């Protein structure tokens, strides 16, 4: 029983320490910006290079979308957006209506790649959740 109490106290102290750290750590300007998500879509239909650029401009101008790019072939689109304002279904509809294309969500690879590791970013995410300034 005593061990459980000590363990609980240690855990509580650890959590209190983490919460304190999350709330007093220095936030960079970028960390104070709103969170974004990225979504990818398969596009089916004829589209010229000029139309691709026009579609990117139209999509980027929609409130809640911060960036939109199509690949060279014009058959895949990537969109960065504010998840509090938009979701993938809304983006699918917007892409379909703006580009007159057949649009479907695309799955992205989930492992490997650039040196932003899952463990570090998950800890960062956890600190962000504990940070009441956000």
């Amino acid at each position, binding site marked *: 029983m005593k061990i459980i109490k000590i363990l609980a106290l240690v855990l509580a102290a650890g959590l209190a320490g983490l919460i304190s750290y999350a709330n007093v750590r220095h936030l960079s300007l970028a960390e104070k910006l709103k969170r*974004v998500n990225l979504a990818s879509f398969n596009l089916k239909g004829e589209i010229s290079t000029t139309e691709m650029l026009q579609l990117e401009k139209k999509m980027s101008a929609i409130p809640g979308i911060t960036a939109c790019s199509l690949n060279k072939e014009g058959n895949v689109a990537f969109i960065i957006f504010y998840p509090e304002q938009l979701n993938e279904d809304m983006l699918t509809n917007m892409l379909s209506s703006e580009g007159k294309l057949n649009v479907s969500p695309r799955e992205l690879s989930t492992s490997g790649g650039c040196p932003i590791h899952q463990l570090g970013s998950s800890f960062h995410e956890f600190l962000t959740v504990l940070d009441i300034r956000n």
Partner: protein
Amino acid sequence: MKTGQRRNHFVWLLIAALAFNMGCNEDDEQTMDPTLYTRLGGIEAISAVTDKFLTNVASDGAINARFEAAVANPSRLQVLRNNLIDQICAGSGGPCQYKGKSMVEAHTGMNITTAEFTALVGDLVAALDFYDVPEKEKNDLLAVLGPMQSDIVGK
């Protein structure tokens, strides 16, 4: 006698005021030469260019395999985006502090080729062009980021 003292005080006040005014003019001249950060449009403009750069990279067949998994995961995307914005902001003289790893540390073991680095720079230039960033600011920014090549390629 009192009138003479008053005149002296007036002269000293005048000299002090002129000196203060000259000091202000020097400050004004300094503020007339804004940093690259200010010329780029501050943090909002840098974050817009960074987001466009990230979607360009994700759609670039030459290098997207390096980035796809990172941008697909919201927490990894967030860290990558924050690091890029802070790095551009700090490098251009803005009030940011880059908190990520050094370029050598981050890219060691990845065996990034010159062609991949060139493709990445091309995606950044395309993002700057998308937002009509003037040639001078574009070149100044590339001059800040260019020297990183030796810390990234072939590590």
